[in-house]
């Protein structure tokens, strides 16, 4: 019964050579389009990520330069003449030897051997990378990425 209906369908469809070729070409084209889309999506995703990395590197370099700049500015603000004039403005006066009192701290030896807490065995534990990617997840990721790019393009 099933075989008959299948045969009947084929006969009705006119399963000639042209249709057979179309049946091969169309899915082939579709598959090619899907792969091309995936490839383009992947490449665009890489390009976007790399651009972001480049921007992060530039931002890091800018922050490092700014740090250096600030370090210099702080040092210039902490020069001895500035500190002295500021201290004098606040009413301080230069100390003399008589202003200092010295004390003996019994049993204190600054050169004693330091007691170091032994490292916890758990500190050395390195968490193994967990592979939790699924095909559906990957597909979703590609789709999201593609959507994001279209959204970016439109915006």
């Amino acid at each position, binding site marked *: 019964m099933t075989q008959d209906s299948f045969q009947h369908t084929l006969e009705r469809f006119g399963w000639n050579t042209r249709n057979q070729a179309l049946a091969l070409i169309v899915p082939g084209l579709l598959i090619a389009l899907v792969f091309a889309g995936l490839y383009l999506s992947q490449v665009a995703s890489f390009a976007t990520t*790399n651009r972001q990395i480049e921007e992060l590197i530039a931002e890091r370099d800018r922050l490092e330069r700014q740090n250096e700049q600030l370090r*210099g500015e702080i040092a210039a603000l902490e*020069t001895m003449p500035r500190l002295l004039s500021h201290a004098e403005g606040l009413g301080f006066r230069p100390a*003399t030897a008589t202003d200092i009192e010295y004390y003996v*701290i019994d049993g204190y030896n600054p050169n004693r051997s330091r007691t170091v807490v032994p490292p916890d065995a758990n500190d050395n534990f390195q968490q193994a990378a967990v592979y939790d990617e699924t095909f559906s997840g990957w597909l979703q990721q590609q789709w999201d990425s593609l959507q994001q790019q279209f959204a970016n393009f439109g915006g």
Partner: protein
Amino acid sequence: MATTTTRTGLTQTDIINRRLPLVILFLVVMASFLLVRVSQYQWLPPEVEREFQLRSAQNTNSVRRLPAERGVIYDRDGQPLAVNTIQYEIGVSPNLILSDRRREVAANLGLILGLDEFALYQQIDLQEQSWVLVARPVTADLGQQIADLDMLGVVINPLSKRFYPQGTLAAPLIGFVIEAENNTRGAIGVEGSYNAQLAGRVLEQEVSNVPFQLPTDADGSQRGMDVVLTIDRDVQFWVEFELTKAVQETNATGGSIIVMNPRNGDILGMASYPGFDANNIAGIEDPKLLQNPAISGVYEPGSVMKVLTMAGALNSGTITPQWTYNDQGVLNVGGIAVQNWDRSAYGIVDATTALAKSLNIGMATIALEMGQERFYTALRDFGVGQRTGVDLPGEESGILKVPGDPDWSESNLATNSFGQGVSLTPLQMITAVSAIANDGLMMQPRVVLQIVDGENVVNAQPSAIRRVITAETAEIVTQMMIRAVTEEGGGVPLAQIPGYVIAGKTGTAEIPSPTGYEFGTSIASFIGFFPADDPQVIILIKLDRPAGYWGSQVAAPIFKRMAERLVLLLGIPTDDVRQALTAAGGIVTER
């Protein structure tokens, strides 16, 4: 469907069927050949592969020059002495700026940079170039203002600039940098001597233009190493403060002060007058100002030299502290008449008194008793006439004429013993006397404490040059130097500070000129260390042509002021407190 028949009786289908295997065979062979060739490209000889990669890279890669960030210079407490700041180079790419935006770009840049708007517009509008320089260097503030406008076609390139936040502080010691062909280069001071460590490596890095290839990041190891100096910023400030004050008060033409730890050779402060501002090298008119006279300026030390003569004589066994001579006021040696500084005769004098009263005849007598070989060997042992090897460029070795030299005469043996006819740098002098403070062991003076390369810290270990005298001799000479400061009627009361025993010696040297010695001028100096029983610091004061003439009058008070500041800065308690605390087994702490 009709079929045609050939003369051989074969139909077209037959012919096709007969030829088809040949065509297929041909295609298969060709495809196989191509496959073989393609597969051959997968396993190329290394040199061919490299060549292909190079050709490929030429199409997609460009070379970017990454200048190295210069290392920072710190004082021993981590205060930055030389850092890098940002400046900018502003350029425009005219072909990226739309014609209707050019006037606006010119107006904005002109306003921020203080440049003529019309001239800028001409640059942007008329020159169809890919890039035009607008201004260089531009301060960080202005550069940031321009960056904030986010104008298309305006190119902002950061430039690293060396900045010395402490201004003139320790400028000859730190040095400065100059723009070299590929990178900045240290010129003098630590910047010069440690240029290899500070400069870092300039990289020529290949950068791919392919957008989906991972961007190349700068190699972190190219940055220069940081250098930590033995200099204490606060000590250095007071050294320069007191030196400037002294020069102004005494109308001296120049001077030097060095503060050193005799135990390890660490130079805590070193200054010469006049100095310069390393942030404004272009403004320096006299290139002599760029020298560091503390290590390159030689002078006749005068009576400070007597300490070395005495130490050498005691150490060689020529004399003992109980040794005496008859001071008759004049001693003729090699055709010259040696006299004491006050032209007096002192009669029977022992060795300690000869040093305490700074008697030229006493020292000349000792030198004559030592003889040429012992005397000059002793001076050489103290490093006279040799560079100390301090880690700074431009050090001079001084002048020591020895027997056999064409310009040496017998009178030199006598005059050298009290510091005439022999020249040293201030650093040589303080290094030599440091050996006495350090129980006879002469330490290598140094200005660099650590070199920091990322996480790696390399500590420069103190190193001894040699043992010059025995510890016993050092102790005897120290006691004599204490007496030279505290001697009733002949000591140096202006160098004394309450609560501390100082070991020291004055020096008042005439200044040689082509026609003999300058009249009425001197180099006044004082060298001293304390606490005398456990020296922690040694100070050399030297003033050129001061109005007061005598070392005991003009150099000693500066030593006192410096010492009073140093006991606070370095936390050195008074002798009685320190000895009581040590006896109690405690450690000194400050409140």
